């Protein structure tokens, strides 16, 4: 394992300290327990949005803390859910008296840890579970689908609605709706290496890729021979269109998200391919995003997300945001 680090044990605290120093105009960083809050928290009368999850998906979630998006983020160890003490401390730091909305990716660890924190909280708490990963079969008796890159879109849209003064119930409903209107699937060309483990999570041959990869290196639908960008786009966009039931004529947001080790050059090329396929399905791409937003350490690969838009969601997507990773409007 080669990484630009001092040691796996100190990496998180050092990285978070660096993040706090670079973005001191936007966030406050607390190191024990670890959580990141927007500079001007708490905002009286505003529902506080809190997300979190294992580290290794940067800029998600700390990079999305700030005006118009999250009030706080709780980073866990690499690929490991944060713990309730972090969440409780974050809740106390950002609670504006209007309730707390947790945005949680659907992994057993994250779900249970946030659940315990919510049980311990004093005020009203609601949770939006994201589960946009098309690679996993949805089924009632199982864990269900994973939350992946659409989490970013949920956080942006719900964050904008919270900034506008939406109440807890409506924000929860909006988050659930955006999640349901989204689908994602990813491919990996290489594995990532968890620093504490020191070894690649899996191995792929020089001509293989994993179709339907998870953002922690969980295996996907199947291992296949390398495909072209166009063939990948065709399979993924097709799967999402089917599952989310996107009909010809609908407006969508198209996100091509890098897993961390794939250069922008390729991501924009994959976007070009995905846009072509989406248009072939009759979709109108009215909003786009390309870059590394929901990553898997240094994994080479990418995911494609489609979210059904309407006028409200589009306006919320466009609404001003000031975070380390998103800055517009």
């Amino acid at each position, binding site marked *: 394992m080669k990484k630009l680090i001092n040691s796996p044990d100190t990496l998180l605290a050092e990285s978070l300290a660096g993040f706090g120093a670079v973005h001191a105009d936007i966030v406050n960083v607390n190191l024990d327990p670890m959580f990141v809050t927007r500079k001007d928290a708490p905002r009286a009368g505003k529902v506080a949005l809190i997300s979190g999850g*294992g580290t290794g998906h940067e800029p998600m979630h700390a990079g999305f803390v700030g005006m118009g998006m999250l009030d706080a983020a709780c980073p*866990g*160890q*690499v*690929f*490991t*859910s*944060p*713990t*309730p*003490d972090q969440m409780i401390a974050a809740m106390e730091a950002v609670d504006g008296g209007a309730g707390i909305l947790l945005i949680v990716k659907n*992994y*057993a*660890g994250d779900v*249970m*840890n946030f*659940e*315990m924190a919510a049980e311990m909280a004093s005020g009203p708490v609601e949770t939006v579970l994201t589960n946009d990963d098309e*690679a*996993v*079969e949805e089924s009632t*008796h*199982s*864990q269900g689908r*994973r939350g992946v890159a659409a989490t970013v879109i949920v956080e942006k849209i719900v964050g904008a609605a919270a900034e506008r003064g939406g109440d807890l119930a409506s924000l929860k409903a909006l988050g659930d709706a955006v999640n349901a209107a989204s689908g994602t699937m990813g491919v990996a060309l290489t594995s990532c290496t*968890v620093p*504490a*483990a020191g*070894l690649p*999570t899996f191995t792929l041959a020089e001509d293989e890729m994993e179709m339907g990869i*998870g953002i*922690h*290196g*969980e*295996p996907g639908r199947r291992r296949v021979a390398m495909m072209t960008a166009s063939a990948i786009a065709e399979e993924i966009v097709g799967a999402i269109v089917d599952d989310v039931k996107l009909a010809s004529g609908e407006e969508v947001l198209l996100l091509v998200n890098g897993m961390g080790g794939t250069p922008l050059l390729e991501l924009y090329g994959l976007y070009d391919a995905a846009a072509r396929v989406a248009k072939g399905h009759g979709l109108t791409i009215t909003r786009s995003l390309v870059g590394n937003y929901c990553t898997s350490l240094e994994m080479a690969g990418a995911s494609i997300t489609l979210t059904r838009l309407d006028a409200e969601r589009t306006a919320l997507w466009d609404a001003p945001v000031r975070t380390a990773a998103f800055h517009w409007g």
Partner: protein
Amino acid sequence: MSTETEAPAEAAGDTALIAALIAAAHDTITTHRDELSELDRAIGDGDHGHNMARGFDAVAAAADEITALPFGKALAKAGTTLVMKVGGASGPLYGSALMAAGKVRDEAPTTLAEVVELLDAAVDAVKKRGKSDVGAKTMLDVLVPVADALRAGPAEPLGTARESAAAALEATRDMVATKGRAAFLGERSAGHLDPGARSSTLLIDAVSAVLEKS
């Protein structure tokens, strides 16, 4: 420990017992840390050993505080410590298990039936927290068979606990996971031991060894 009713352990006795249990659990998890993560790498995300070690390091670090408590409160405190330190799925699961077991009574169990009672409380908490049950290829596939084996009132409870745990662990190999990260693999999760089942087996062995000596 015998299978017969004994006088409740005294406070001093509890302290020694709790200290021994903490040391034994901490020791086995630390020793098998890499093995647990290795198992998790095959069907999960490779961190189970590190998660558990982080949790039991914290429990060991708080041993002075924990051993000063009555047995039930000590269990609960160890559970809270795990919850606050482990992260991942195993933290809330083992944490809720200990917290629930700690609520059963303040005194240490003195009969096999009381031990089973604690185990049942722990199992129920895991099921509730994990929204799961046996057959999903998780720690429950060790904890439940062990509780059941002890419920039958075996002559050699410690040996029975160890043997049923070992057999139950091995049985997770052929299971297809439906809960936890391994569930994302579907059929491909078969052929590997479940890491949480393995850590449960280790903890049962460690507890058995302590009770054998006490």
